[in-house]
């Protein structure tokens, strides 16, 4: 990689260097051309036209000036202004020529110019001389006629001499006037005339002037002519021409030199152009080569890409058709071929396209090519390829197909090349891949190899598909067999030696054996011993002879239970007729009975705890009672104490959880020396445990039962984790013992129930787990209680209850401050029932609620009467704990108070300590409600219960009633009671609570209490409970 990079860098820098060389050559050539070109610049050439025009101008001026002078010389009228203009122009023109730097660069030319200027200068001087001298001459000529006139006038005309003189003068005049325009001969004439005149006498002044002027003419005429001749002799034309010639010569030299330069430039330019041309040609060629290379590369890349795509298509394709289509799509990509299709050889010997892509798809859709012809020449390449089983690739497709029916299609799609490649599997052509192209010479070695590769790949893929198909079929077969094997019939397969090699799930479910347990075993493990040896022998005999046996047979399960089934045993033979396997399948005939069992199970089981229910318990009990042995059986009924409270406080789901856990614990019981232990859920919170002991004597059975009961209770007393919180329950248990007899299950349950009832009753008092055995008397009591209860129910309606009142006396004043209402029941037959005998029953039956309200109403109405004689007397009424469970207690009391307009502060409820302690929060709430009404609360039987002083503070207690039990022994010095009473009284005082002692019967007791500081007393010492009438009497008597 690095090597490549450096190499390419090197190549890059090389190309840069070579570029610099090329640019260098071009730059140097250009520089040289420019240099030569610069050489051709010559100011002389540039200004050639200007200089030439000046030369012509000067020449023209020369000519004009000379002409002008000639005219002036021979003409009278004159003005030098124009001549001056011309001379001035000539001067300027020459000056500018002189200043021309281009000319001064060429010495020869400059010399010629200097000569010219020099001559011109001389010429100008001569012109000035001409002007001056010509003017003088002109002056004389102007004046000459006038001078003649004056001279002639001054001469005397009479003398002959004078006439001659005149003639001579006239000759002079004529000679002078014409001299100007004639040749030099005329001047001789004038000279002669003057000489003639000289010989004469002295002339006059005027004539002298005339003679002077003629002399002047004679003097100046040759002078002017001479100047004129000199001007001509200057040969300024020659100088001019010489300069011009030199100029032309010089310029032509320069031009010639320049032509050489131009030639060199031309050569260089041509060289440069050739060089650039060659470079460009090289570049174009390189570019073309590069393009070709790139095209080839991209073609190869496309082929490579296509092959990769084909590879992935072959790998990914799940079936033949998808594969064909993908291959066609790949081959007909724009970089490859225009059209690609794959036809499958049908059983009818035709080729039908199954996948196609690219141009002309619509034609291929309906194409069917017969392959059963043998006329290769007319049928075209496909048949040829099919028959020869060889690929045919041609770049001259139309030529080869010219004679066939396909030619029109070929022309329509302008197909140039074709490749027909048969796909051969196991020597048969199963499909043909056909590729068309509209480009010429597409089928190169690379492309052909690609196509061969493609065909190979397809073949491989097709073989793979075939293998896959076969495997799939095999697997399907297997699946079908295994599904068939896994039917509801119990099946086993053994080898020839009757060893089990396979069994199905139905078998394991039926027999209870697992597959591992039976594999390698013989079916003999199932033998029930119910059939004779002959039975089996005839069975096998039939199998050997007919290959199959069918019939009903009894077998034994793993757990020993027998079952009947309809069994078939068949021998599996190999191709040689030897037994390789035996197959047995059995249809369980006990199936129907099992279904029945399940229904029963559902009927006899509790849904929540999934343990037997009451019905099943009764069944069990009946079964146990129906036995003929003399062993004792036990029936335990277990009730969860205060389950209702548990349910209410923690919720029903918690209650259900508790029940399930209790059931689980009972199920898990393992107790020695008993058997046939079974449990059941009898009621909501009642469970039963039944078991059989090995005790035959009652004396043995009873302790055993007690032990078992203790074990059970201990087990249940262990904490339960309910809703992730530990909970402890206590239970009540009723036990009854039985031996098989003529008792019914129902009666047994009744007995156990009675025992439980008693246990519950005890438990309510002790708040502990309780066990009670049933005995016969107990049963009778129970019967009595029911009867008594029924009597009580009617008692209230029959107005059999009476109220008696025991006065309460303040110790310090000995005044009657209150009365306690006490209920009495006088039956319709006249017998009086003690309160302790019927009040528990009232409470248990719940009658106490209605009776309690009757007591309050009755007491209030009595008190209202008493108030007429003793206005502030308070009435004290006992309230039972059951009454507190009445939701409407407060409202009822309030209603009564309002109804009777009774002052609440004169009403006092006495409640027991146990009530206070049982349901503290609710009790506090209710007691507070009473206190709010103004009703006072007294604690009855104080000292018998918890006597917790701390709790007292939380209740609105206004009075403590010290129980009679303490008062009885208050005078006895060896008792601890006086101290307790003393302490109670002192504590009460400290808390501001009034104390009342009940059951005071003796004077000593009164004194003792008085000494202790007790506030009030009640008891026989003052008065027994009195009827209302008697009470009135007592009050009146006491007041006295």
């Amino acid at each position, binding site marked *: 990689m690095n090597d490549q990079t450096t190499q390419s860098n090197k190549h890059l820098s090389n190309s840069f260097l070579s570029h610099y060389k090329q640019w260098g050559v071009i730059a140097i050539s250009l520089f040289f051309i420019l240099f030569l070109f610069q050489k051709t610049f010559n100011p002389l050439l540039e200004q050639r036209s200007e200089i030439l025009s000046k030369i012509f101008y000067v020449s023209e001026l020369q000519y004009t000036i000379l002409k002008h002078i000639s005219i002036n010389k021979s003409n009278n009228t004159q003005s030098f202004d124009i001549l001056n203009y011309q001379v001035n122009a000539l001067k300027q023109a020459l000056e500018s020529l002189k200043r021309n730097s281009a000319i001064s660069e060429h010495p020869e030319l400059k010399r010629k110019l200097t000569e010219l200027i020099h001559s011109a200068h001389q010429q100008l001087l001569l012109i000035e001389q001409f002007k001056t001298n010509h003017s003088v001459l002109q002056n004389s000529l102007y004046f000459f006629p006038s*001078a003649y006139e004056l001279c002639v006038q001054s001469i005397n005309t009479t003398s002959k001499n004078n006439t001659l003189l005149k003639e001579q003068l006239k000759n002079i005049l004529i000679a002078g006037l014409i001299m100007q325009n004639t040749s030099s001969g005329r001047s001789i004439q004038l000279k002669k005339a003057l000489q003639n005149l000289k010989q004469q006498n002295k002339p006059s002044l005027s004539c002298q002037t005339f003679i002077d002027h003629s002399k002047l003419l004679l003097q100046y005429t040759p002078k002017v002519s001479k100047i004129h001749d000199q001007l001509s002799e200057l040969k300024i034309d020659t100088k001019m021409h010489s300069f011009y010639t030199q100029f032309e010569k010089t310029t032509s030299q320069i031009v010639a030199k320049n032509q050489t330069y131009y030639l060199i430039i031309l050569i260089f330019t041509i060289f440069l152009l050739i060089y650039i041309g060659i470079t460009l040609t090289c570049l174009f060629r390189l570019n073309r080569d590069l393009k070709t290379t790139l095209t080839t590369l991209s073609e190869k890349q496309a082929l490579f890409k296509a092959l990769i795509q084909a590879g992935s298509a072959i790998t990914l394709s799940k079936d033949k058709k998808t594969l064909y289509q993908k291959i066609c799509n790949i081959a007909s990509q724009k970089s490859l071929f225009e059209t690609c299709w794959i036809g499958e050889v049908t059983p009818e010997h035709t080729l039908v396209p199954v996948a196609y892509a690219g141009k002309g798809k619509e034609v291929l859709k309906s194409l069917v090519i017969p392959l059963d012809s043998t006329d290769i020449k007319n049928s075209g390449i496909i048949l040829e390829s099919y028959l020869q089983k060889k690929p045919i690739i041609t770049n001259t497709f139309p030529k080869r197909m010219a004679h066939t029916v396909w030619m029109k299609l070929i022309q329509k799609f302008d197909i140039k090349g074709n490749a027909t490649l048969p796909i051969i599997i196991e020597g048969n052509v199963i499909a043909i891949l056909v590729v068309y192209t509209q480009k010429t010479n597409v089928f190169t070695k690379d492309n052909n190899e690609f196509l061969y590769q493609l065909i190979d790949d397809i073949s491989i893929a097709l073989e793979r598909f075939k293998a896959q198909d076969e495997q799939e079929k095999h697997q399907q077969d297997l699946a079908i067999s295994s599904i068939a094997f896994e039917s509801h019939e119990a099946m086993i397969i053994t080898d020839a030696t009757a060893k089990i090699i396979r069994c199905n799930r139905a078998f394991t479910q039926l027999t209870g054996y697992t597959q591992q347990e039976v594999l390698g075993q013989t079916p003999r493990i199932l033998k029930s011993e119910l059939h004779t040896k002959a039975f089996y022998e005839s069975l096998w005999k039939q199998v050997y002879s007919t290959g199959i046996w069918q019939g009903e047979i009894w077998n034994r399960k793993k757990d020993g239970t027998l079952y009947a089934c309809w069994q078939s045993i068949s021998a599996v033979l190999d191709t040689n007729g030897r037994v390789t396997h035996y197959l047995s399948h059995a249809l369980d005939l006990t199936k129907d009975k099992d279904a029945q069992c399940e229904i029963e199970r559902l009927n006899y089981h509790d849904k929540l705890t999934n343990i037997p229910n009451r019905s099943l318990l009764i069944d069990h009990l009946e079964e146990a009672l129906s036995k003929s042995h003399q062993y004792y059986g036990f029936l335990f009924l277990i009730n969860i104490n205060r389950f209702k409270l548990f349910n209410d406080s923690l919720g029903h789901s918690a209650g259900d959880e508790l029940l399930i856990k209790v059931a689980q614990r009972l199920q898990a019981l393992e107790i020695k020396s008993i058997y046939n232990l079974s449990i059941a859920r009898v009621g909501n919170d009642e469970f039963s445990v039944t078991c059989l002991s090995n005790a035959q004597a009652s004396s043995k059975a009873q302790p055993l039962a007690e032990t078992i009961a203790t074990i059970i209770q201990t087990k249940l007393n262990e904490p339960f984790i309910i809703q992730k919180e530990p909970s402890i329950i206590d239970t009540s248990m009723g036990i009854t013992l039985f031996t098989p007899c003529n008792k019914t299950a129902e009666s047994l349950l009744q007995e156990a129930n009675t025992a439980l009832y008693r246990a519950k009753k005890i438990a309510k008092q002790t708040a502990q787990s309780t066990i009670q055995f049933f005995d016969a008397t107990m049963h009778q009591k129970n019967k009595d209680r029911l009867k008594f209860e029924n009597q009580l129910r009617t008692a209230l309606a029959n107005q059999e209850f009476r109220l008696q009142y025991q006065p309460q006396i303040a110790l310090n004043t000995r005044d009657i401050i209150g009365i306690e209402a006490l209920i009495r029941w006088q039956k319709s037959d006249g017998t009086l029932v003690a309160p302790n005998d019927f009040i528990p029953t009232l409470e248990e039956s719940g009658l106490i609620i209605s009776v309690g309200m009757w007591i309050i109403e009755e007491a209030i109405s009595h008190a209202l009467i008493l108030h007429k004689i003793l206005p502030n007397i308070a009435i004290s009424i006992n309230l039972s704990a059951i009454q507190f469970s009445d939701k409407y207690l407060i409202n009822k009391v309030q209603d009564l108070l309002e109804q009777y307009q009774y002052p609440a502060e004169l009403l006092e409820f006495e409640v027991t300590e146990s009530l206070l302690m049982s349901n503290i929060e609710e009790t506090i709430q209710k007691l507070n409600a009473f206190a709010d009404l103004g009703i006072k609360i007294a604690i009855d039987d104080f000292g018998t219960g918890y006597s917790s002083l701390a709790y007292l503070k939380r209740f609105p207690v206004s009075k403590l009633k010290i129980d009679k039990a303490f008062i009885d022994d208050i005078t006895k010095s060896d008792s601890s009671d006086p101290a307790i009473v003393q302490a109670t009284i002192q504590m009460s005082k400290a808390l501001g609570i009034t104390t009342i002692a009940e059951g005071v019967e003796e004077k000593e007791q009164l004194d003792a209490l008085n000494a202790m500081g007790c506030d009030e007393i009640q008891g026989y010492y003052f008065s027994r409970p009195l009827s209302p009438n008697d009470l009135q009497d007592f009050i009146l008597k006491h007041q006295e």
Partner: protein
Amino acid sequence: MNNSVKILAGFAIFALAVVVYLDDKKSNSLSQEEAQLSLFSQPSFQQEPISPIPRSLSLNSQKVHLGEMLFHDVNLSHDQTLSCASCHDLQKGGTDGRALPVTAEYQKAKLPNTPVFNSPTVFNSSFNFVQGWEGKSLNLEQQAAIPLFNVFEMGNTTWSTILNYLTQSPNYHLMFKELYKTTTITPEQVIDAISTFERSLFTPDARFDLYLKGDQTILSAYEMDGYQLFKDRGCISCHHGINVGGNMFQKAGIFKPLFENANYMNNIEKLFKVPSLRNIALTAPYFHDGSIDSLEEAIDLMAKHQLGITLPQDENNKIQAFLKTLTGQYKGQWLSNE
């Protein structure tokens, strides 16, 4: 490929532009030459040797204005005493009205052998073929610089003093800048401005010019006689052309020297430029030394020395009358020396 085509096209357009430009230049230079040639076709008037002064010449009026300022500016002299106008007072016919310039005495004292000449008129000087009595200056440009650096005249020694003065003068500076589009004032510009102003000092519409232009009645018979005598007595042979003189050199005294003892000859042939007779009536005293005060005397002298005769008085008067018709107008006003 596209780029090379663009480059070629661009080059072709450039080449075309160059060719067109060169062609234009060529035709321009031709027209310039034609203009030069046209100078020769100066129209000649009738067959008279004297031609009239044109009514107008094309001159840059700004240059004329600037030249006029410079012409009258004494600050161009080294001691701020003299200007061109000191010796060429336009109110005195373009001369100082003196025989010799004010500085002549001083110069004579300093350089006794150097001749001092009467100040020639500046009017119509542009029509003279050379400038000065001796014709030392070939044109007005050459002539304009001479007095500036003559120690006896404006007395400058270098151009820098003059140019400094002009540059520091905001007025001049601005005018030069506007006229010549350059930031620095050059001597050529100063000379050009002054000589252009001098070219504007021509006096057309002399009565004689009007006669030449065809007004046959403008001259009296007496004046016409004067003109005829001017021609017959040969005066015309030297005093002709547009400026009635000023177009050749001539010997002062053909028949006898004009001033015997005069120490004026600095050339062997004793030649002077023939002075112009335009406005001659206004430019007394006459001759190179200003020795002759009257025109009559001057004519008389000319007849005696150049013609060798004593001119009769009436002829003299007639010629005087003619010469007075040569007085022209400057800016529409008759020229006068009053």
